[in-house]
């Protein structure tokens, strides 16, 4: 079965449209004399199997409604920036964009998770030319955006490896070291941002 039902073909199209919109925001910003807002921009549609597994894990019925309405990450985009300031600039510009509404946001940079995870999460409600689950056209779809710095992104990859390996030797020590490393990387991010502000401050 396809949990996304007849809406499945729309998802990659929407992903592509949103990526194009984000690129356009960046191009406008650069043309106005700003620095580029991200280094990497990636997106994916959550696979059928992953979405089914997630619904089961969250004890939701395995239905198209669960996939597109109860869960918000069928379409996911990651924006990876050089500096913390750029992350917040991206958030600011996405909030101003007329093609989407921010319906939920979590600032795990200001409020890092206890394990050391840092990232800024947005759930967007995007207006699309396609029919949505409620039968409306233009239709509304959720898109999850994760924004973070390169350092935060690299850390998240490392933490992901740890999480998905079921038997880790000395797991408690590794977790402690990961947290320690997250604090070191945060120190680098904040230090680089401070230096950048010192370089660019008005005379």
């Amino acid at each position, binding site marked *: 079965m396809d949990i996304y039902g007849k809406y499945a073909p729309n998802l990659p199209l929407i992903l592509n449209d949103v990526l194009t919109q984000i690129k356009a925001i960046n191009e406008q910003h650069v043309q106005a004399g700003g620095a580029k807002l991200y280094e990497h921009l990636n997106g994916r549609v959550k696979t059928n199997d992953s979405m089914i597994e997630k619904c089961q894990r969250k004890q939701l019925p395995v239905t198209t409604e669960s996939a597109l309405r109860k869960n918000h990450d069928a379409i996911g985009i990651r924006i990876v920036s050089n500096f913390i300031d750029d992350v917040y600039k991206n958030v600011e510009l996405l909030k101003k964009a007329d093609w989407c509404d921010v319906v939920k946001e979590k600032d*795990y940079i200001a*409020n890092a998770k206890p394990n050391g995870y840092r990232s800024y999460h947005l759930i967007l409600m995007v207006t699309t030319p396609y029919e949505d689950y409620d039968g409306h056209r233009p239709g509304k779809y959720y898109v999850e955006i994760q924004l973070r710095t390169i350092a935060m992104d690299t850390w998240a990859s490392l933490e992901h490896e740890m999480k998905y390996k079921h038997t880790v030797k000395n797991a408690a020590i590794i977790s402690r070291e990961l947290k320690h490393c997250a*604090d070191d990387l*945060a*120190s680098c991010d*904040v*230090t680089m941002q401070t230096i950048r*502000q010192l370089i660019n401050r008005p005379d």
Partner: protein
Amino acid sequence: MRILLAEDEGQLSRVLKMAMTTNNYTVDTAANGQEAVDLAQQNPYDVMIFDIMMPVKDGIEALKELRASGNHTYTIMLTAMAETDDKVNGLDAGADDYITKPFSLKELLARLRSLERRQDNYSQSTYSLGDTTVDTSAQNLSSSNSISLSKNETQLLVFLIANAKKELSTTEILTSNWGQQAQVNAADLWIYICYLRQKLAAVKSSLQIKGAEGGPYQLIETGESNDSTPA
């Protein structure tokens, strides 16, 4: 604490060792300056007590030799009451304190207790103010979040916390113990202040450093709590 006692008078050495041992210190004895140097190079001591007048090598020579080799162990010299020069030479050779002979055991033991208290204070590893904690051994700053600090950032922040609310001029900070040891100038200080400001903000601390480039700088606690935005 493990103590190295260098004293050539056998009777006095035995009495001192006995007294210190009963007070739960571990004591090794040397009968002359050369033995003291050899023992200090083999074992980790917390305190060294050196008599000055000793055969083979006197206490001052032994201490100079150890200091030159990089040994910084806290050292008390035993000096004769009348000899001011002994005290001066001993301190200049790198001693940290002296006791004049004849001395009472009570005084020596009180000095060792005082030293222990001081070392406890020195090794205090966390300093807190309001919602914010600095862990000096982990070099970490935490409030609702945590972040690593460099050595200089750690020490400067501890200094600012110890002197919270005071308006501190650049000169006052640079001539403090930290400023002297870190060998920083006014421009360095400004950059450390900038780093600390952003790190305090990054962990959502209620502490703030006020002051423009050049100082004076003032660490204050702002009223707002840091838990307004739930994760």
